[in-house]
């Protein structure tokens, strides 16, 4: 079977800092990583390949430096890597992104065989939209299976797949058909340690670099800023509240007294709360 997995290189958000004066992102020295949610999809793709045979193609769209993320994916054991990179893609929102990626997946399909499954992560940690996966599914007319917690079975001959899907308040058991797009839920598996062989392979292999034209994209007005219906008008830091927190003075006081003082301050501001707590709490 042929599996395509879309990943994204993201700044490690735990290390992002905002400049206190200019309110701009300080990217200098912020390391980039594979979007952590994508690793669950990658591991699932590798497991399916190991079980059913075939190939895993990993695809990303991004600046030239996104090649690092692809090499990491190769190091985990992916068979082929494609970097979709072109200045025409700059400024893409989710609609333009899903357009470019779906075109590239179609080209991957023509070149290396039609994919049976396209994987994405649940969402990214920088955009957090969870929209690109469904966008790709719709454009490629793939059956859409989001928030998949478990792939229960695949019957390649019957082209049938059964999955457990996270929904509000429970788990749906679904039967669907290949080809499909799966967004994988987090915590469903753990990314493997790549083998030495994979590491060597990753260092040696060629990452395919495709421009918009290479991916077969003819209509550039559907890419990047021009192909994006949404426009970011303003980026800003939230205003502080007019008054800062009222500080409970802690100097030279016993913890017990500070605690009593805090509780008194809480119940002064929320008088009804004391009654509710006294009759509902475990105290």
């Amino acid at each position: 079977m042929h599996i395509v997995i879309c990943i994204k290189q993201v700044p490690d958000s735990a290390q992002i800092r905002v400049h206190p004066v200019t309110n701009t992102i300080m990217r200098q020295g912020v390391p980039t990583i594979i979007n952590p949610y994508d690793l669950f999809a990658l591991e699932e793709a590798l497991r399916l390949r190991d079980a059913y045979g075939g190939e895993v193609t990993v695809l990303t769209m991004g600046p030239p430096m996104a090649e690092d993320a692809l090499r990491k994916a190769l190091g985990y054991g992916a068979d082929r890597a494609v970097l979709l990179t072109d200045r025409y893609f700059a400024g893409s929102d989710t609609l333009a992104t899903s357009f470019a990626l779906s075109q590239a997946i179609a080209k991957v399909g023509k070149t290396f065989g039609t994919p049976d499954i396209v994987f994405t992560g649940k969402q990214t940690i920088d955009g957090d939209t969870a929209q690109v996966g469904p966008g790709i599914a719709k454009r490629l007319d793939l059956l859409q299976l989001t928030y998949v917690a478990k792939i229960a079975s695949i019957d390649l001959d019957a082209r049938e797949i059964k999955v457990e899907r996270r929904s509000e308040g429970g788990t749906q058991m679904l039967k669907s058909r290949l080809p499909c797009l799966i967004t994988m839920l987090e915590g469903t598996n753990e990314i493997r340690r790549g083998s030495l062989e994979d590491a060597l392979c990753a260092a040696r292999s060629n990452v395919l670099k495709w421009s918009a034209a290479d991916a077969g994209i003819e209509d550039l007005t559907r890419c990047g800023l021009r192909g994006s219906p949404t426009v970011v008008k303003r980026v800003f830091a939230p205003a502080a509240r007019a008054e800062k927190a009222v500080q409970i003075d802690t100097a030279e006081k016993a913890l017990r007294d500070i605690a009593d003082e805090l509780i008194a301050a809480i119940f002064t501001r929320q008088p009804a709360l004391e009654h509710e707590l006294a009759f509902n709490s475990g105290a």
Partner: protein
Amino acid sequence: MSTVNRETPRPAAGRAGIKKELPDHFKDYRHVWVFIELERGQVHSVSFELLGEGRKLADKLEVQLAGVVLGPPGEAIGNAIAEAFVYGADLVYIVEAPLLADYRNEPFTKAMTDLVATHKPEILLLGATTLGRDLAGSVATTLQTGLTADCTELDVDTDGSLAATRPTFGGSLLCTIYTLNYRPQMATVRPRVMPMPQRADKPVGRVIQHKLSITEDEIVTKVLGFLPDSQSATANLAYADVVVAGGLGLGAAENLQLVKNLARALGAEYGCSRPMVQKGWVSADRQIGQTGKTIRPKLYIAAGISGAIQHRVGVEGADLIVAINADPNAPIFDFAHLGIVTDAIRFLPALTEAFTRRLSPHNRDKLAS
């Protein structure tokens, strides 16, 4: 929205050239719609929160507010319609069909896109639940329009455009996003981000039926079964009246017990900030913040949490925020109401003890009398 390559936000001036006139075929798109999320007989409360928000937008635009209910025939759909009116809808569009009994992407996308194409709303709001996100992405792609996820603020600009504000860069800044030349303007909002609106007394409204133009034979995906979650406390975190949460200031995973102890003494739910989940110290369903749960308790006590924006947007709806942090410059003191600059690990046991004393049966009797 967002952001494969949109990594450098540009100031508004740099983007002013993008603004074009709304194409003529979008000019008759009017009114504000809210998707009423009905699943297994229950309306998700995020739908009511969105009706409250939609009401404000509709009033500003001087247009009508409509609810959209998709579901199987039966009592539940009738209740959903009635509730939509109670929470402010002027009219409700319904698509009623047995094959809408369980959520599946194909028929729901079909029903929603057909409704939009027929009745042409200018704004369409959905809850950012697993269902809402699955549906919104497909609908926006089918309609080729803009969709802004997880908004924390919605407003109407002077020119009538929807201004959708959401956290960006992993929650370190906010951005305001417009869908200028496409309709409908779509946005999702997470549960509890917006307050519950007032219930109306004797609401009346119009119900407009629409036929579903897809049959079971055309739908590939079948639902084999549904396993409801065990009624765990985590489901209650978003709706708890009192929440105690811990962050990296607790220093070690085992110190979360101090947070749990205080929560137990208060009959509260406990939670944590994102780094605690990333470190694997707490399970993801306890995370409070933009990518976790949004809470609106009467009292929120944050211990050892620095207060990054992505956490802030998840707790700002709390009536009273108490911050305990050893760092006097921690951003949490910018939006907390009460602060204590002290080591949470030392202070939490004292606070638990003091609350227990104050709320003891002895004092309870005094309160009751």
